[in-house]
């Protein structure tokens, strides 16, 4: 019989992540369950529909049961585990998106998107700077123009320039 430890497609890291995810969900469920004892309105108390926390408690019970089952018997995953360098790249990209999201509020769509579209490929190992800059400029300007002028959706603006 294959186990997580002997099967190369299901490395032990996957099992640890499965248990970690299940424990995190259980902790979150416990926190939310404690919230179900919050004060409710008089109307909710009088309702035949059993109040606002009636349904979430059912779901929380299911989450707790399934979470426990997953901790006890984590299922092997088909998703290949990334290497250490790969994980660092993915973590870096998550941080880059977080900075991009902050940049949207602070510098507006066009400036932050141009920077993100130039720097993210560079960070991911693509070194043809001229191609990256050209693609980033054409792509970001097209999206910005389409949204602002064709679809009339106002994108986040920069505080320094009028119009974008």
């Amino acid at each position, binding site marked *: 019989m294959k186990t997580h430890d002997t099967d190369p497609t299901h490395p032990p890291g996957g099992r640890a992540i*499965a248990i970690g995810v299940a424990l995190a969900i259980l902790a979150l469920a416990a926190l939310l369950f404690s919230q179900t004892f919050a004060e409710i309105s008089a109307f909710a108390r009088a309702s035949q529909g059993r109040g606002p926390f009636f349904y979430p408690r059912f779901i929380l019970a299911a989450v707790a049961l399934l979470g426990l089952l997953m901790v006890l018997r984590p299922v092997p995953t088909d998703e290949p585990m990334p290497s250490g360098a790969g994980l660092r790249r993915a973590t870096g990209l998550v941080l880059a998106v977080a900075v991009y999201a902050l940049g949207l509020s602070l510098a507006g769509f066009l400036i932050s998107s141009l920077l993100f579209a130039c720097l993210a490929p560079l960070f991911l190992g693509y070194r043809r700077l001229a191609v990256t800059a050209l693609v980033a400029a054409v792509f970001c300007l097209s999206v910005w123009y389409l949204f602002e002028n064709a679809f009339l959706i106002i*994108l986040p603006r920069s505080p320094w320039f009028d119009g974008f």
Partner: protein
Amino acid sequence: MELILGTLGEIATPLALLCMVAGTVVGVLVGVLPGLGSVVGLTMVLPFTFSMPQVPALALMLGVYCGSVYGGSITAIILNTPGTPQSAATAMEGFPMARRGDADIAIGWVTAASTLGGLFSVLVLMLAGSWLAAFSLNFTPIEYFALGVFALTCIAGVSAGAMVPGLLSGACGLLVATIGADPVTGDLRFTFDSFELSAGITLIPVIVGLFAYSEMFLRAARIDPSAAREKNRVGFRLPPLKEWRSRLGMLARGSVIGCFVGALPGTGAATAAFIAYSEARRTSKRRDNFGKGEPDGLVACESANNAVTGSALVPTLALGVPGDPVTAVMLGALIIQGVTPGPQLFTQNIELVYAIFALLIVINLIMFATGALGAPLFTQVLRIPEPLLIAMVLIVSTLGAYGVRGNMLDVWIALGAGVAGVFMRLAGMPVAPFVIGMVLSPMIEQSLRQGLVLTRGNFLAFFERPIALVLFLVTAGMLLWPLFRRWRTRG
């Protein structure tokens, strides 16, 4: 007659036609790129629909949906790498044909079979959608609750091989949808005194995070910048008519299988394609050629996976119940457009329903033209360096999350969902059930509690209504069937 002319007038506008063509082309491109798939494609175009009128917005979304199901087959044929899961069966016959130099005729077979399968499914949607909507007009909240519980069984369908993680993922989706104001009493739940959370967590940012962000983060983890990009070029050639005559039965069978499977919750185009392929392999006169590049297999699986596109919309439009993540995104897009899917759609907004039928017909024809004219060009998209592709998908996806409410909180929710999606996928938890749970939760809760008010708090009265009882029995049957089958196999 007036209605038909009105419908034609709505879809024949320059904007609607442009959206159909653009949607189909983008859909095919998304399908060609391995790993992106229909949900990521729909998520990417969603922000472009926010300010559009209803019909062009639907044209864009339906174009992407149909185009992406078809596009995956091109990569399956030329690279033996299915662009989408639904094209996996296509690779089994398409790639051997490409290896012997018949890639262009293989593309011809799949383009024609996809178009005909798609058109057949529109016919089914027209007939079954109206009938189901008329039938469901008699539903009370009790029947809707039973229907919602039945639709939850699709979570089991999309969690094959990972039942507990899939159900846990679905339960988390059900739970997240309860954040915000209680739909019956208005009391706030799980908001931790945050004003922003009192409006709840909207579906689209979660979809963006779980599907688009997490896919891009995982791609970044596995990227190989030094890898050479594909440089294949293929043409398009339609098979001769006499070759078709002997395969019409295969085409009809594949289309029927696709329509049937597509209307069931939790199945989808990949399941339909594999069932049709194995059925073709079992019944074909040329079964000995299977695995060596037999067009029978291509016709069966491509007509089946494209026949899913129309029939999957039957429960979505008629009942407001999505069967898979693709139709869940479509449902979200419809709601953003101010359209409430369900039986009332067929009585109060029949013009829009007719427009959807007409759009699907035209889009399937555009898909044929796109395949015939663009096949050699679409393969060029495989040459886009992956780091550039990741950056572009992330920018458009971020706009998708932001644009729903023009709120930066949604971008942060999408990012949180993206990180959660990465961990879920690495832990073997499918992300599709989460979205399905989130879509179904409001309907299940509201109908359950309204039903309890109607029955004065007596839950047993739910089983006294015949339609609800049948739905509960079918649900129990669907959940218990795998256990029974396993018990029989062991016995």
